[in-house]
Every structure is written in structure tokens, then in C-alpha cells.
């Protein structure tokens, strides 16, 4: 024998009536911004194994929004899951249509695998990624060597207008910032040195300190950092945006080598301009030192320059220029590599730009260390 029907108000406008086998959900009035989660949870409690059918009744339903639709959708999903039959035919036609639309699935999504890796698997996976990255970098450098050869044998498809544009960008347009920063670095170097040297009356050696410091390493490092931030990041951003806009795919499908077309003009421009910018940086740094020594510390002008030129050696100068050349190679390589491996999301270009600067600076320091050790061994 069926139990007597009980009535319960779930919220204003939603009532539930049930006996052992049937559940009746009665909707009325204004049903907007309903507390969906609570109502569905309460209905779920009534869906015991004995319930065989759910009926929905429109008892003067006036206005409703997505929250009511969500309640009905969730209840129907529960009913389907529990194999309970339901009848929506008494609901307004538009609500029925929307529920039909919500359940009309035209395709199933592919399964995403989200298996959690344990510690060793994680290390293994990361090692494989690292190995792939190393192989990719070796391939990239190899492709650049091949492109160089094509360039030397006049078989490259590099556009000379691109080369000239890159040359203009990392040459004349960079002169101002390189000159200013180098002058200030020379000035700071002189100040810091002067404070120490003054304590034992050897302030004239400020000239030697600034000359050796700027010519041997500081000039090249300053130019490297400026160019990594200014030009290397621009390379990554430009090529990365081309990746996002599918321009790299277009190059690929047209059979145009990306290295010839995009990397070579930038790399050659950088290799050509970096030694010149390093030379400029050396000169401006020495002028900054002279400004502190002659104007602020009142050292005799001729004596200052005599000590400066005495400290200047061709070896120091050439080591500095060589550093500049190597840094140019690293900056162009990192900038273009990060651009070429950029993702296709909106934030990918930002990530590529940051990576290009970080990678360039790290590799510049590593290469400086290597060159320093080699010079030490060779007695240069």
C-alpha cells in the first residue's frame, strides 16, 4: 500500500510532493536567481531507490532564468543516472525545448589522461623533456650552420631588406642607449674605485681601473645586457607573434626555410654591430671615468689620460671585442629560438620574450666564465 503524499517547500516557488514511488516537483511564481546547489541537494535526498518517477508541474510559473534551468537539468541528470523515469510535458514549452537542447549531445569529448606521476616517473619524464630540448637546440644550431654555408655560397633566400632593417635596429638605433649607459657605468666604476684608492693616495689609478675594467669585460657585458633586453626580446616577440598568427606555418607550407628567412638577417646584423657597440661602450666608459677623475676629483687632465693609455693593452681590447661578438651570437640565437618555439596562446609571446632575455643573460655569464678561464690558461 502506498504511503500518503507529503508536501515540502524547497524554496519560494518550488514545492515537492512525494510518496514511496513518485516525486512531484511543483513550480510557481518568480523563479530567478534560485539557490541551485541547495535545492538540487535536497531533491537528491528524496531520490531513494523506491522512487520510480518524477513529474514536473507548472503551477503558474511566471518568470525564470538559467538558475531554474540548471535545477531542472541537474535533477534530470540525477534521474537518468538513477534510472528514474520523468515527465516534463507539463513544463512550459520553451523550458522543455531548452532541456532537450541541453541533452542533445552531438559528440563526446576525447578522454583526457590525467594520471598522476610518481617521483621517479616525474624525474624520467623531465629527463626526456630535457633530452629533447638539448637535441632541439643542437638541431637549431646545426640548421644555423647550414644556413651560414648557404649564405656564404649565395644560395640563401635571406632578404637583404630584412638584414638592413635588422642592422638599423641594432646599430644606429641602439647607439644612444648604449652610449648613455656605458658613460654612467664608467662613472660609477670610477666613483667606487676612487673611494677605495683615495684612502692610500692612489686616486690617479682610477684611470687604469676604468680603462682595464671597461675594455676587458664591462663594456661588452653592459652592451650584452642592453641588447638582450632591447633587441633580443624584440626578436622573440616578433617571431612569437608570427607563430601566433600562423605566419610561421605559412612559411613552412611554402617551403621557405625559417632560419634563412627570419634568423639569418637578425643574427648577421647582431654579429656585425655588437663589436662596434662594444667599442663605443669602451670609449664612453672611459669618458665617464675621465669625467669623475678630471672634473670631480681634480686630477690633472694629461696625467689622467697618460695612466689610462698606459693601462690600455691590445689584448684587453681584443678580448672585450671578442666578448661582444660572442654575446651578439648568444642574444640573436636565444631571441630567435624563443620566438620560433613560442606557443600559440595569448600569453605565449610574453613568456617567449622573458625567456629570451633570461636565457641570453645566463648564457652570456657562462660564456664569460669560459672565455676568462681560457684566457687565463693562455696567459692573455
Amino acid at each position, binding site marked *: 500500500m502506498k504511503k500518503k503524499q507529503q508536501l515540502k517547500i524547497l524554496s519560494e516557488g518550488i514545492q515537492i510532493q512525494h510518496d514511496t514511488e513518485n516525486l512531484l516537483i511543483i513550480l510557481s511564481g518568480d523563479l530567478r536567481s534560485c539557490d541551485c546547489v541547495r535545492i538540487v541537494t535536497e531533491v537528491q535526498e528524496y531520490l531513494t531507490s523506491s522512487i520510480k518517477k518524477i513529474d514536473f508541474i507548472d503551477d503558474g510559473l511566471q518568470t525564470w532564468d538559467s538558475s531554474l534551468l540548471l535545477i531542472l537539468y541537474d535533477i534530470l541528470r540525477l534521474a537518468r543516472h538513477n534510472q528514474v523515469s520523468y515527465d516534463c510535458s507539463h513544463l512550459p514549452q*520553451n523550458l522543455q525545448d531548452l532541456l532537450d*537542447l541541453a541533452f542533445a*549531445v552531438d559528440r563526446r569529448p576525447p578522454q583526457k589522461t590525467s594520471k598522476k606521476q610518481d617521483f621517479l616517473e616525474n624525474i624520467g619524464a623531465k629527463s626526456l623533456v630535457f633530452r629533447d630540448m638539448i637535441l632541439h637546440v643542437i638541431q637549431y644550431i646545426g640548421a644555423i650552420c647550414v644556413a651560414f654555408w648557404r649564405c656564404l655560397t649565395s644560395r640563401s633566400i635571406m632578404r637583404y631588406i630584412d638584414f638592413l632593417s635588422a642592422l638599423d635596429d641594432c646599430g644606429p638605433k641602439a647607439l644612444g642607449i648604449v652610449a648613455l649607459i656605458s658613460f654612467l657605468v664608467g662613472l660609477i666604476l670610477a666613483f667606487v674605485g676612487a673611494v677605495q684608492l683615495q684612502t692610500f693616495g692612489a686616486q690617479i689609478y682610477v684611470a687604469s681601473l676604468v680603462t682595464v675594467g671597461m675594455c676587458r669585460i664591462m663594456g661588452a657585458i653592459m652592451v650584452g645586457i642592453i641588447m638582450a633586453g632591447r633587441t633580443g626580446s624584440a626578436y622573440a616577440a616578433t617571431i612569437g607573434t608570427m607563430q601566433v598568427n600562423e605566419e610561421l606555418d605559412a612559411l613552412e607550407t611554402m617551403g621557405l626555410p625559417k632560419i634563412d628567412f627570419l634568423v639569418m638577417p637578425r643574427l648577421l646584423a647582431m654579429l656585425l654591430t655588437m663589436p662596434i657597440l662594444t667599442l663605443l661602450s669602451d670609449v664612453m666608459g672611459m669618458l665617464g671615468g675621465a669625467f669623475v677623475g678630471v672634473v670631480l676629483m681634480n686630477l690633472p687632465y694629461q696625467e689622467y689620460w697618460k695612466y689610462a693609455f698606459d693601462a690600455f693593452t691590445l689584448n684587453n681590447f681584443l678580448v672585450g671585442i671578442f666578448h661582444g661578438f660572442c654575446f651578439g651570437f648568444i642574444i640573436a640565437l636565444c631571441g630567435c629560438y624563443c620566438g620560433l618555439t613560442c606557443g600559440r596562446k595569448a600569453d605565449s609571446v610574453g613568456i617567449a620574450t622573458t625567456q629570451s632575455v633570461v636565457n641570453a643573460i645566463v648564457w652570456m655569464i657562462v660564456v664569460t666564465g669560459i672565455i676568462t678561464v681560457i684566457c687565463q690558461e693562455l696567459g692573455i
Partner: protein
Amino acid sequence: MKKEIAIDVRDLTIGYGDYVLLHDANYQVNKGDIFIIMGGSGCGKSSMLRVLTGLLLPKKGTVIINGVNMETAPQTDIQKIREKSGILYQSGALFSSMTLAENIALPLQQYTTYSPETIRELAHLKLALVGLTGFDDFYPSEISGGMKKRAGLARALALDPDIVYFDEPSAGLDPISSHHLDELIIKINQSLGTTIVVVTHELASIFAIGTNSIFLDANTKTILAHGRPQELLKHPPHPEVYQFLTRGEKK
């Protein structure tokens, strides 16, 4: 019975700088209509949509949406109108760093007081409504162009809008996907009573879904025709309109 007016455009002139794209446009969109803005390339269809959605200021004239003058009304009223409008851009314009569910949740988090759990469920429901059940955790880069448009529509429907604008919904879709999207537009219009404004030059879509339309002309820079697309084809008010609706046939 006279229908309520959703959008009332009066003496509208659109242009960029000194260049006038369209002048003295007058038309009305009734509530519950699927209204087509059609015309050849460069006639100002997309600019008209930009004016209706508030992305471009008109050079002259007024746009009244649901009784609110979009030029003179207080900012709070304009904001309410914007909250009640959904836009589906040509590319879908989904945020690529977010999953589909997160894309749909974004306006809900911004403009409603629903709990995070309800928002998640609502996002799931909206995706289900456009036939993307189970794609909640997918990124836009992992789905096809047609699915991106559906997901964009789900986001446009997030706040139960009164008006939904579509910018070239069929662009870049195969005929079957385009047909499915047309069906979806009709179902949403009929089920939710949403007013729909579609900018398109896709003839199949125009005849399949349009209940009213205007035809913009790039030469005269005016509205050349106004009416139901089928009626315009039967009784074209201008040879240009007939030529457009018959893919170049001359009357």
C-alpha cells in the same frame, strides 16, 4: 498586436575621421526578432555592430536599446544594458589561457552573486545548451573552429541576455556546421525569446534564420532595403538588393 521595440536606431551616421561609411540610417529591431544586417563587403555592417555594442561612437544620431538612449543615459543604465547583451565575435574571441568553462564563468563571476559551485554548474549547462557537454576543461586551442563559435555563443548566453549580437557567425565554417549553428540560433531565439542581431552576407543563413533585415549599400552609404529577406527577394526595392540576394543575377 504591435511588437515591443528592442533597438531603435535614429538618423545614425557612422564613419572614421572625416570618412563617412553610412549616413542617416533609421531602423527598428523588434523584441524576439532575428534581425539580419546584410550588405556587400565594406558597406559598414561590422561598424554598425560596433556602434550597437558600444565599441564605436556614432558621428551623429542615436541608438536606443530597450528604451535606454546609449548616448545620454547614465552610465549605470548603459552598464545594465551591456550586461544584458551577449556578443559572438567572428573568431569566437575566447580567452586562450582559460578553459571553456572558465571562459563562460568569467561574466558570471563578474556580474552575479552565485556561488563558485553554481557558476561551475551554470558553465556546464551553457556548454550543454550549445552541444559541448563534457568539453568544460578543454582549452580553445584544443577544439575546432565550429566548436569555438559554439563555446563563444555559450559565453554570450552566460548572463541570460535580452539581445545577442553575432558577427559573421558562418565565417570559416563548413556548410554542415554553419547549418547547425543556424539551427542553434533559431532554437535559442524561440526558447529564450532572445532578440538576435546577425551581421552576415551568407545567403543560406539569411534566408534560414532572418525574420527581419536591412540591406546596407556601400555606394549610396544608406540603407537600401528593410524587411523580411524572403519578401525582399520577391519584391526587391532596388536592383542591388536583388543582385545580392541572388548571388549576382540581374533582374
